[in-house]
């Protein structure tokens, strides 16, 4: 695992990946175990939900706003806000450690003077981040697949995969902000602040845009718009959305290559 910067980075992220994966699996299991009891009181719940303003319902529960179906339940309880937070937080934490982490630890000089090359280092660090975040996506998918099957409420492997692909790409896009800022400035904190700031701002933009017609035209600026918003599950594969998320990440990676190449490495 010490062959190059890519494998070394993977090795370093195994422990955080396992911790996050355990957390995800535990939470999914917990939620799905209470689903049967929720379904029994679905009538009451649905009545309450029906009394909410339709805009609020759309914003937080998705277009259907259906709490009682397995798809609606998974959307509301997991994929509308928790899963994006998990993917973004995980990707941001890994991205912050990638370039800025090596620099703050003082090991960046060592890497660069052992004929790694700046461009290659950026690409290897980025590739490691992609692999690890995708791995969390796979874990999330498996956990949901198993849990929904056990709860007797199968949602469909394909539909789940589509939703988690979009959420994984959302995490990577926001993580790329952290990766770029961290690499360009050499500060983990600046990278985390940028990623978290962008994540929160885009979430708010997308959520408010569903309730407010003035903001609605600007919805296209939010990455959440492309990851499925409040109901990633059950929308089918949105090719445009996936493309926008991928293009955002690619553009940020390209920016990192340029900015990281230019700057002075700190001692």
């Amino acid at each position, binding site marked *: 695992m*010490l*062959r*190059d*910067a890519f494998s*070394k980075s993977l090795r370093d992220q195994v422990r955080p990946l396992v911790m996050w994966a355990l957390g995800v699996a535990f939470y999914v299991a917990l939620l799905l175990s209470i689903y049967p009891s929720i379904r029994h009181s679905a009538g009451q719940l649905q009545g309450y939900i029906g009394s909410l303003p339709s805009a609020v319902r759309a914003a937080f529960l998705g277009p259907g706003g259906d709490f009682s179906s397995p798809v609606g339940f998974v959307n509301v309880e997991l994929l509308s806000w928790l899963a994006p937070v998990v993917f973004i937080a995980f990707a941001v934490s890994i991205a912050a450690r990638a370039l800025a982490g090596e620099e703050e*630890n*003082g*090991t960046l*000089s*060592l*890497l*660069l*003077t*052992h*004929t*790694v*090359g700046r461009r290659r280092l950026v690409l290897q660090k980025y590739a490691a981040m992609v692999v690890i975040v995708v791995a969390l996506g796979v874990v999330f998918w498996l956990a949901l697949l198993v849990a929904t099957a056990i709860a007797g409420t199968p949602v469909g492997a394909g539909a789940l995969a589509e939703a988690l692909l979009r959420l994984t790409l959302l995490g990577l896009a926001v993580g790329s902000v952290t990766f770029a800022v961290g690499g360009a400035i050499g500060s983990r904190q600046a990278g985390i602040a940028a990623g978290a700031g962008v994540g929160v701002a885009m979430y708010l933009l997308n959520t408010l845009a569903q309730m407010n017609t003035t903001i609605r035209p600007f919805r296209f600026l939010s990455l959440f718009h492309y990851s499925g918003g409040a109901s990633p599950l059950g929308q089918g594969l949105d090719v445009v959305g996936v493309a926008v998320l991928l293009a955002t990440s690619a553009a940020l990676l390209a920016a990192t290559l340029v900015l990281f190449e*230019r700057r*002075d*490495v700190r*001692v």
Partner: protein
Amino acid sequence: MTAAIRTEKLTKSYGKSRGIVTLDLEVEAGEVFGFLGPNGAGKTTTIRVLLDLIRPTTGRALVLGRDSHRDTLAIQARCGYLPGELRLYPNLTGRETLRYLANLRGGVEWDRVDELGERLDCDLTKKVADLSSGNKRKLGLVSAFMARPELLILDEPTSGLDPLVQHEFYALVDEARDTGQTVFLSSHVLPEVQRVCDRVAFIREGELIALEDVSSLTGRAVREIEVVFAEAVPPAAFEGVAGVTQVSVDGKNATTLRLTVTGPLDAVIKKVGEFRVLDLTSRLPDLEDVFMTFYADGGDDAA
């Protein structure tokens, strides 16, 4: 032959003052070159420009005949580097650290790593986090020497090393010279430079103030000589003797003579020999004195 290192009007500005100023430096292939100056003089800055970790404000540096910025990778493949402030991965053992660095670099024979580790008395089984700074430094030295690079760039190589390991390090530098490798080392430890280097450059506040052969430096050194005579001597007898710059007499009955002498001692010794001598001490010339003279007069003495 192409110079191993050549800087052309190299300048690196940080805000107002620090950095380096129009530095012109040439290190010949195969020599051991000392880069001497107090902390903050710009030694590390220069080295980091050579390795393309930072970019010059103006001017350029050629390393092994290639532009430090354009051909970074080609240069680094032929260079070994020890950073002044070495930071390693705390959770790796010494062996894992060297394995990783050797893999990154490529072309390292593991036998050589073992040999260096043994000679420098490295503990490769402990985690880096549990190593003292001297022991970490040894790992850095192994990584700099392991690929038998054409050019070794060592920033304060012996700081924190115990004397035995320092001795082994000097042996490694001598071997490097014997096999035709070039060594560029920075230091503020003067006897060290005197011990291992062929030539030395003095740098102060980012400017090169002198460049000398170590041997000629020693020849031009300023010495203080103290002679105790059996009877009083007339100071005037020593004024005007070749090399003597200052004369004073004191002690009981004016029998102790103090001389400040520059250069060869021959004329002085012959003059002293005309009187009955009880004792003679000469403070050995060390680089520090020379260094201080250069600094005191702002480098007017520079060749």
